[in-house]
């Protein structure tokens, strides 16, 4: 029987260029692919021979949406290689800056990319959201601005900050800037909470969509400290579907995570070594962070968290729960930012201790908005990078995005005869829930060698 291809190209309201191809015959789905057609930029090769201390500024250009995460994973990798400990005040500033990144990225995703679907506005864009609910659009803008302002105050620039250097930070935060942030933060904390309630109430009622996106029971990976929710530093915790947990140190990641070259595409799919491929694939991001860590306590966010668990169980497997998780994290990080800003210790002046370059290997991990991010550098005695490996969150989610595309298409296709468009748009909503960032997926590029 002859097959035909259904395609979505480009997948819209995600960062980067991709195509979904679904192979069908008259009755059944025969296969599905999530192809990245994003241009490769060869960052790992680009780093070779460069001064290591310049890498935090270079590698953040991997991604304009989550530059702070790359900036910090990079500086941590170098510090690990040089056995260098930044002062406590510097670590506080970095934590604040990473929180700012989560706030700006999550508000951007929810407001500009996800909410247009979930609110079913006529024009599926922020313009549609602004026309239907100007106050909501204004909240989204304020939250996004707050995140960017934090990055600018701590990092020197709102997008592509500069202040994290091996040994600490190039500057403390000015008292005046701290006061401005405190004022914006106080305004934002209630808005972020309201947004989480809105996502919970309004979107929670989309039972049919939630049912559709109940697709797979996977494992989850994220950073924790003593089992608690963590973004900047800690151990990698993997939660098995059985509830069992596996923990390992950042420096040992390559003993646990392997990358598989998949024959049908150029995608290297990461998986947990001990379970083999494809059994060992795992997911990262907001859903994973909330699944692997102990419950969020304190403040009104704890209430949202309980509602999330009630709706999706623990661990939560539903892919639409990524959006709920993102809204909860947004409210939580705004609360955390305010807590950090209220503590005068954030103005500490001792933010740098001189590093001593030497030969060695260093691994830096942080939680980027989209999940676990790994930078791994080999550095020579002159302080030049000789080898680099970077694993981005989207690379780790890619195997699940692809397998869920196949599952979802297979579930919907038999009933989709009259409305293929609906099926394809549901697939896009599923992909969007992951908030994939294809500009980040340097490892995950499908391409053909030049003739």
């Amino acid at each position, binding site marked *: 029987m002859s097959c035909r291809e259904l395609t979505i190209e480009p997948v819209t309201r995600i960062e980067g260029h991709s195509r979904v191809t679904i192979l069908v015959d008259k009755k059944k789905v025969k296969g599905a692919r999530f192809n990245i057609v994003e241009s490769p930029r060869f*960052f790992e090769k680009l780093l070779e021979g460069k001064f290591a201390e310049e890498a935090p500024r270079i590698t953040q250009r991997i991604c*304009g*949406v989550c530059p702070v995460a790359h900036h910090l994973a990079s500086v941590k990798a170098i510090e690990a290689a040089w056995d260098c400990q930044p002062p406590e005040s510097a670590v506080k500033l970095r934590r604040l800056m990473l929180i700012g990144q989560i706030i700006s990225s999550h508000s951007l995703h929810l407001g500009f990319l996800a909410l247009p679907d979930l609110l079913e506005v006529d024009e599926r864009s922020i*313009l549609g959201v602004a026309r239907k609910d100007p106050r909501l659009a204004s909240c989204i803008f304020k939250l*996004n601005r707050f995140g960017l302002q934090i990055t600018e105050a701590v990092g*020197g*620039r709102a997008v592509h900050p500069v*202040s994290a250097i091996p040994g600490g930070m190039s500057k403390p935060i000015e008292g005046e800037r701290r006061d401005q942030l405190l004022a914006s933060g106080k305004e934002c904390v209630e808005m972020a909470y309201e947004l989480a309630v809105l996502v919970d109430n309004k979107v929670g009622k989309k039972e049919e969509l939630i049912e559709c996106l109940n697709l797979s029971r996977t494992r989850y990976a994220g950073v924790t400290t003593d089992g608690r929710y963590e973004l900047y530093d800690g151990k990698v915790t993997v939660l098995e579907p059985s509830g069992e947990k596996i923990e390992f140190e950042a420096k040992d990641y390559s003993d646990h995570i392997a990358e598989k070259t998949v024959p049908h595409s150029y995608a290297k799919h990461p998986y947990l070594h001990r379970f083999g491929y494809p059994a060992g694939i795992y997911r990262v991001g907001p859903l994973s962070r909330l699944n692997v860590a102990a419950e969020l306590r304190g403040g009104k966010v704890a209430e949202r968290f309980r509602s999330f668990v009630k709706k999706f169980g623990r661990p939560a497997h539903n892919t639409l729960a990524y959006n709920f998780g993102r809204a909860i994290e947004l409210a939580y990080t705004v609360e955390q930012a305010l807590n950090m800003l209220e503590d005068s210790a954030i103005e500490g002046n001792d933010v740098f201790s001189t590093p001593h370059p030497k030969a060695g290997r260093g691994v830096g991990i942080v939680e980027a908005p989209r999940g676990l991010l790994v930078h791994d550098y080999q550095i020579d005695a002159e302080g030049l990078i000789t080898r680099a490996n970077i694993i981005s969150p989207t690379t780790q989610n890619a195997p699940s995005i692809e397998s869920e595309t196949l599952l979802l298409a297979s579930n919907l296709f038999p009933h989709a005869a009259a409305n293929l468009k609906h099926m394809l748009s549901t697939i896009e909503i599923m992909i969007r829930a992951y908030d994939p960032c294809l500009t980040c997926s340097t490892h995950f590029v499908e391409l053909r060698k*030049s003739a």
Partner: protein
Amino acid sequence: MTVMATLSLSGDAGCHVILASLHEKLLGLLEPHELAFCQILKDSRDIPDHVDLTLVEGSVRTENDRERLREARARAKILVAIGSCACFGGIQSLCNFVDSQELMKETYGAAIAEAKSLGKNLPEVLPKNIPVREIVEVDFQIPGCPPEPDEVASCLGAILRGETPQLSQKNVCDECKKKRGGDFEAKIRRLTEKPSDLERCLLELGYICMGPATRAGCHAKCVAANVPCDGCRGPADLKYDQGVAMLDALIAADRETVSTYSVATMSAMYHRYSFATSVLAKLLERKDRR
């Protein structure tokens, strides 16, 4: 009503993040007009046949990039290159002196063999990374990595009013608040050393600060954060080679250190965002040895 479109080529979407961060101003720019194609911000699959203003982010690295850019140009009355990848090739051009086949092999290893059989629908990687204006005619360039939000808003506002936007003709030093004494410490320093005087010009302290060779308009933010300018906005006057100008100045100051490291190392200091447009890159590309 003006019909607008945005196109993303090889880059990091940072310029689109800047567009989104215009917030209310973005709505103000869009509301009387039509944003007909913008993959990242709205559902749209194709560039319409007639567009008044197209913004292009990113450089050209694949055949797919080149085709989409040519198509965008053919359909646009005005085409604006936004960001330093589109204007100068951007940071990814630092790979331009590495053979593209070697790049592919080292990045993707054995998978290359598989890739050959993948056939249709896959973008072919070009031998190097290319700025937009080397492929199509560009009406205006807004440089920066990323460009300043206010500058983007004012440039777009001017274009929509039918005016020619103005960029600063000064260099970053003109906006810098650090103090200059007029003498250069005879030793180039790396960022691993803390500046001995946070009030003083970083270049004079020996750091490779690209301020003198870089277009102003950013309020010298990086230097204000005690980090040298890395030249993300390209040269103020496009006649000049940003990195070669800097190299020449540094040779006079510390010839020994300048001669210590390879082009691979130092291109990331002198030409971090503009290597593709550099004369040095063109010379290195010449394989005929004539």
